[in-house]
């Protein structure tokens, strides 16, 4: 009885906040409603007995993904008139996609048979196992290869994102590792005994390295030999 009431509360708030996500004007409010939707979905998982999945949903989606959404949306300066124009231009395409999805849903549901007892049967976990242990056994014992394949797909996506957004601008500092390893203490450090009461600057200053960072920078990166010369040229006007 109580569980049913809680289920309907969570489900109603979930649907309501899902509707609000696409209908509110303010993008920050939209993201906050999305977070509310995630949270209620976690509540539904909890009622279904999947406590591990519920916690994971909150940690991953609410705690990490949605925070990044919120960061981006808060920092962006969203222009509403521009958005309105885009809406009118893209409305036919959007309507097409929506119609196709709706037709597919209708087709799927027309062939859906619901067993009256299935909802009760699915709640029963394996005897003597906690939720987490049952999931762990499934993923790491029975379906370990599929699980590894999923991980590989995610890894490819991650590397792809990095490759797509990485730009060599020549402003990064990269060292020639062999040269850096070959440097010795004598090349870089000089211990000077200064006479008491004398001005340090008159004795040659604080920094007197034998070799500098510019010599070990990789060509094309910040501070490499050619960039250094160009910078000097600009400074001297030669």
């Amino acid at each position, binding site marked *: 009885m109580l569980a049913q009431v809680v289920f309907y509360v969570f489900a109603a708030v979930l649907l309501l906040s899902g509707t609000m996500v696409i209908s509110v004007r303010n993008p920050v409010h939209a993201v906050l409603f999305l977070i509310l939707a995630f949270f209620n979905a976690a509540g539904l998982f909890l009622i279904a007995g999947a406590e591990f999945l519920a916690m994971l949903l909150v*940690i991953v989606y609410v705690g990490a993904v949605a925070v990044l959404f*919120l960061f981006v949306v808060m920092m962006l300066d969203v222009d509403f008139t521009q958005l309105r124009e885009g809406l009118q231009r893209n409305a036919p395409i959007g309507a097409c996609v929506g119609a196709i999805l709706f037709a597919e849903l209708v087709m799927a549901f027309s062939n859906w048979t619901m067993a009256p007892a299935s909802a009760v049967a699915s709640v029963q976990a394996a005897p003597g196992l906690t939720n987490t242990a049952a999931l762990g056994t499934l993923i790491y014992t029975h379906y370990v290869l599929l699980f590894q394949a999923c991980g590989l797909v995610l890894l490819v996506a991650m590397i792809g994102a990095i490759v797509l957004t990485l730009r060599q601008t020549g402003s990064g500092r990269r060292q020639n590792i062999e040269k850096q390893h070959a440097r010795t203490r004598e090349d870089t450090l000089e211990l000077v005994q200064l006479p008491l009461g004398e001005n340090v600057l008159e004795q040659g200053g604080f920094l007197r390295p034998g070799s500098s960072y510019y010599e070990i920078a990789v060509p094309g990166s910040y501070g490499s030999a050619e960039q250094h010369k160009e910078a000097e040229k600009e400074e001297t006007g030669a």
Partner: protein
Amino acid sequence: MAQFFYHTLAGQIILMLLETLAVLVPLLIAVAYLTLMERKVMAAMQRRRGPNVNGPFGMLQAFADAIKMITKETVIPAGANRALFLFAPFLTFSLAMLAWAVIPTGNGLAVADINVGILYLLAISSLGVYGILIAGWASNSRYAFLGGLRSAAQMVSYEVSIGLVIVSVLLAVGSLNLNDIVLAQRHIWFCVPMFPMFIVFFISALAETNRAPFDLPEGESELVAGFFVEYSSLAFGLFFLGEYANMILMSGMISILFLGGWLPPLGWHRLHGCRVRSG
């Protein structure tokens, strides 16, 4: 009597309320006296006396401050998003209280002894970012917004290291239940075999609660006070309580994960005949 409390709905609800109060009231009193202690210690470091007027040794200072805070006017800045502005402190405070539901203070003595306790703690502490982000955004102030972004960025980044430390403890325990984590330390506290992890957790906990030397988000000299610049009266009080409750929660987590919870170190409970149910 037992019949009423355990077998009727009203009795169970009353019992639940009493359990909750038994956790939250000591927590709030602890917040009151830990702030007093902090002020006393800081005063001693600066050769001042600290609060010493209200009550003996200034013991009633925190309550005087609370009454002052409640009776002050709530100022909502012009152009602020009213609903979100008032929602943020409530969120921060209630999350700080919610997390205490799973903290065990004795064998099986938790309000909710759930199987995924440590994940619950991680989930609640990752929700804490929203109170800060919403407060910073809804204040309609540059200082608050910058402070909120800084705070949120810091919390999100140190959550990763906290997660990794928790994973290493979980590998040693083999359970997500906080009670089992404590009972796994009955031979030796985890801070001995996992000393580096203990240090990492301590540093991350400092960063997570924005305490010195990680009080960059507060940035007194450039951001005034961070994300809660615009808050006053009870709303500020809720942020304050939430922040200090979070500090005690982090200390509680260190205690559960590394310092053996309610158990004495090195299996000394055998010496004085304390019985520990094996987990």
